[in-house]
């Protein structure tokens, strides 16, 4: 599709396909399918055939070429005198003579190299002074004066047979450049006579007629009945002969036919399009070509391009020009499916949303592009809104829904109902929205940043307050910006803080330093929380209660923790002291300290008392640290039983010492003493009971059998036969035996006294 043509004058044009060749072909604009490039001889040197044309013929040098295509050209539609207008010349020829050739106006020689690559086609015009078909003119005097015409010897007469008719015409000169036809004679292939008067002065012309066209084959001048000779090739006579006979001749076409046709079409269209005439010339052929291509593609160029067409030829290619003039278009053209779509794109190159349209329509037919253009404004508007509005709000969801509804429109052509109304309503809602958090993405980000800072500030306060309240640090998960600690609640908590009391706790205080750091940070970044009375008051509270001695808070909670640990170990003691989170930290601290002191005191008391008591020190400590311990009741109950048996209260208190009288150190000490006393009484009573049991054992083995034998004898007596002593013995013995194993001391003593009296009496 690329070729190079060389004009008669040696100018060189290269024709190449361009960016929009397919589109031009699609439009039927064949003359715009390729674009020309004027080359200098040096630029196409290796593709040029070196020729030299003379009056007799053409001579050439083969160079790198090995074949030559020869095409005979006849201008102005006159038929060719040969059946083979194209012929091939081999390398054994280096010249052509016009005389050897069929009549023609020009030759077009196209060289080919060994690889079959074509060189530049060069056009060589027939020298204008040479007759098309040479004839011999001979004046004939006499009665039948005239000019005898015969083909030049050697002329192939069959060439004349291709003519429909041969005519001989006599043109008499009647003035300066004024001629008049006086004779017209039909000739045959051997010629004929054109009668002229003897006074004739003018031109005798041979015309060939074919396909309704006349062709000046040869001519001569006749003056004063003498043949003056042949006129020169460019003589005025040749011109007059053509003019007066209405015959054509070589037009002087400079370019090979294909180039000439393109040039003619371009120039013609350019003129028709309104290109200024001074711009329509071969030097501007490329610019003109591009101008017309752009125009055909409805790509508007500026008015300066019309007045300076060469400006369009500066880019090396049409693609470069398009890239320069329509930067957005070229990428779209490269992805377009076919000529229709590409032409649609060029026609809409000025559309501001062309990229969006093509992207939306996809690689589909122009119908989709057309529909996409119809709603691209809505789509872009919605996309802008989508970019502006958060997707997780009502408006964002509606935008997304609308976008999804119109998305298939380029393919389906289905348009959502009342799209404009819905879009307008949506815009109004967005413009008037005062939602919290904001629906606008940017405002939402600003809002989030504010929330994050506020949350950071409040979280720091919350941490500080929590530590002051509970003595621990909150384990925070990923921040939830919507979960903002309530400022009023923080203030309420801050107001409850009071400077903690001094405690007996000691040690390093990393927690205190962290607490102080939190408060200092809250002061430093107070601007993170919007200014408010609550914020300032919270800071004041913390400054007054934390900063003077942050370590106190840590020590206080260490004490409370110890208190809680001890309370878990000694729940009864803790319950007696009313331990538990009361919200009153000072009170809790006092109770914790008291608990710790009492636990230590109970341990010391247990160590002191246990050696003297029938209870292990560990067990005794449990009892002393556990008011209302169940052992107390059971021990007291056993003591009561033992005192009942032994007949001696053994300093047993009237009620069991279940718990201290009050939650004070003094009361606990008294209670511990009372507990120790109870165990001491219990030990003494058990010892006495054991001792009594030993005595009873002696009595049961030594005295009782005798007494029982005596009783058996007494029981065999009638009631009246028994003495008072007998009855007393029986009663005492009965009572003794009825008591079972746990004989009370009183019963035992009575039995012994009765028996003793009986022995004495005996």
């Amino acid at each position, binding site marked *: 599709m690329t070729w190079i043509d060389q004009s008669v004058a040696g100018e060189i044009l290269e024709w190449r396909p361009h960016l929009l060749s397919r589109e031009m072909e699609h439009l039927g604009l064949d003359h715009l399918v390729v674009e020309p490039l004027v080359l200098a001889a040096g630029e196409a040197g290796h593709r040029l055939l070196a020729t030299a044309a003379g009056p007799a013929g053409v001579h050439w040098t083969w160079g790198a070429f090995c074949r030559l295509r020869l095409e005979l050209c006849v201008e102005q539609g006159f038929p060719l005198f040969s059946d083979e207008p194209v012929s091939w010349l081999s390398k054994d020829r280096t010249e052509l003579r016009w005389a050897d050739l069929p009549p023609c106006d020009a030759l077009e020689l196209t060289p080919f190299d060994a690889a079959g690559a074509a060189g530049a086609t060069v056009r060589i015009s027939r020298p204008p002074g040479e007759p098309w078909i040479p004839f011999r003119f001979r004046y004939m005097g006499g009665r039948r004066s005239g000019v005898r015409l015969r083909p030049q010897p050697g002329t192939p007469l069959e060439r004349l047979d291709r003519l429909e008719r041969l005519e001989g015409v006599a043109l008499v000169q009647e003035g300066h450049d004024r001629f008049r036809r006086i004779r017209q004679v039909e000739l045959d292939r051997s010629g004929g006579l054109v009668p002229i008067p003897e006074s004739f002065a003018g031109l005798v012309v041979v015309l060939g007629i074919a396909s309704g066209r006349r062709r000046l084959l040869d001519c001569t001048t006749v003056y004063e009945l003498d043949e003056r000779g042949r006129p020169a090739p460019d003589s005025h006579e040749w011109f007059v002969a053509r003019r007066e006979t209405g015959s054509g001749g070589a037009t002087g076409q400079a370019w090979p036919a294909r180039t000439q046709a393109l040039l003619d079409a371009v120039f013609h269209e350019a003129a028709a399009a309104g290109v200024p005439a001074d711009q329509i010339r071969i030097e501007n052929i490329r610019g003109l070509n591009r101008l017309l291509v752009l125009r055909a593609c409805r790509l508007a160029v500026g008015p300066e391009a019309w007045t300076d067409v060469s400006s369009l030829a500066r880019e090396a290619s049409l693609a470069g020009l398009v890239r320069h003039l329509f930067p957005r278009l070229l990428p779209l053209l490269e992805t377009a499916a076919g000529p229709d779509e590409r032409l649609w794109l060029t026609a809409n190159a000025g559309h501001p949303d062309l990229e969006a349209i093509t992207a939306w329509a996809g690689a589909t037919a122009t119908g989709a592009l057309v529909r996409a253009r119809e709603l691209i404004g809505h789509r872009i508007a919605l996309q802008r809104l989508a970019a502006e509005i958060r997707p997780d709000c009502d408006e964002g969801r509606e935008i997304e829904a609308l976008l999804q509804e119109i998305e298939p429109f380029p393919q389906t052509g289905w348009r959502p109902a009342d799209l404009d109304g819905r879009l307008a309503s949506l815009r109004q809602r967005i413009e008037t929205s005062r939602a919290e958090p904001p629906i606008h993405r940017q405002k939402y980000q600003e809002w989030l940043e504010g929330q994050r800072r506020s949350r950071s500030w409040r979280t720091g306060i919350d941490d500080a307050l929590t530590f002051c309240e509970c003595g621990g640090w909150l384990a925070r998960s990923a921040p939830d910006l919507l979960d903002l600690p309530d400022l009023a609640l923080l203030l309420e908590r801050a107001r409850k803080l009071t400077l903690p009391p001094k405690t007996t706790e000691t040690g390093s205080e990393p927690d205190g330093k962290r607490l102080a750091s939190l408060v200092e940070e809250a002061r430093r970044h107070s601007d993170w929380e919007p200014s408010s009375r609550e914020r300032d008051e919270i800071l004041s509270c913390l400054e007054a209660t934390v900063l003077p001695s942050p370590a106190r808070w840590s020590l206080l909670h260490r004490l409370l923790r110890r208190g809680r640990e001890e309370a878990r170990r000694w729940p009864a003691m803790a319950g007696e002291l009313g331990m538990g989170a009361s919200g009153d930290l000072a009170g809790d601290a006092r109770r914790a300290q008291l608990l710790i002191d009492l636990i230590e005191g109970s341990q010391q008391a247990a160590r002191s008392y246990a*050696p003297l008591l029938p209870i292990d020190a560990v067990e005794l400590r449990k009892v002393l640290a556990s008011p209302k311990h169940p052992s107390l009741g059971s021990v007291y109950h056993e003591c009561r039983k033992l005192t009942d048996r032994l007949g001696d209260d053994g300093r047993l208190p009237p009620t069991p010492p279940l718990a201290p009288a009050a939650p004070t150190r003094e009361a606990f000490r008294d209670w511990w003493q009372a507990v120790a*006393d109870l165990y*001491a009484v219990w030990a003494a009573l058990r010892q006495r009971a054991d*001792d*009594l049991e*030993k005595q009873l054992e002696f009595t049961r083995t030594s005295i009782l059998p005798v007494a029982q034998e005596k009783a058996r004898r007494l029981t065999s007596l009638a009631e009246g036969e028994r003495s008072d002593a007998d009855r007393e013995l029986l009663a005492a013995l009965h009572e003794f035996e009825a008591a079972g194993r746990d004989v009370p001391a009183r019963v035992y003593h009575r039995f012994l*006294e009765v*028996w003793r009296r009986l*022995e004495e009496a005996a």
Partner: protein
Amino acid sequence: MSNAAVAAEPTTRTVALWGATQVGKTTTLAAYFGKHRPAWVVRDDSDTRMSLRSFQEIWNALQGNRLVPGTTMAIDHRLRHREGFTVLFRDMHGGNARNVLTSREDAEALYRADAAMMFIDWPGTNAVAGRAAIENALQELDPDRPTVLLITKCESHLSMADFALFAMDPLEFAQRQDFSRELRESMESFTRHFRQGAVFPVTVYGWNGTRPAHFYDEFGRLVPWHIQPALVERPFEHILGKLGQRKEVTP
């Protein structure tokens, strides 16, 4: 009760047995271990087994109705207690009881003993010696030391019922008009002196039926006859109980 500090636990607790000759110290000791075989004794060391063998020989002699010779010198009887310490019963020579200054070693032992068991028999021919032994002991012994007074040979003077009543409340029983005045005075001296003192009437021989389980041989010696010891374990267990409490405490 007052608070007391914990002291290092001594490994040996000494119990001094003090009383006049023939008052029944060794006999009572043997009867306690021979008859009762107390459960607190741990028999896994040679000292304990040697002491128990000694007591068993005496107890066997008594059960064989034979007299036991008197102690001519102090004898230490060591027995391992199940609570980890060793109880040393120092059976002191009764001949020195009348004049403790004659044996500084005995006086020192008596003074340093952790507890003491003082023996006195029913006033009779031996009343003066017994009273002297009590008075001497009261001079040497710390009033706060656990001390018991054992009144031996009750079977010779009291019926079983009287013995039982006497054992039940010795001081009250001693208030009876027919009670020995010397003995009552000795008891009162004892109870006045010792804040933790306790009086235990005991009988090693006991009674056979309603009669004392002994008789007098042709030399006028009181010879056992199918003895049935009664309440001999009470003073020992009382004093051991006090020692068990005393083991960890110092005022």
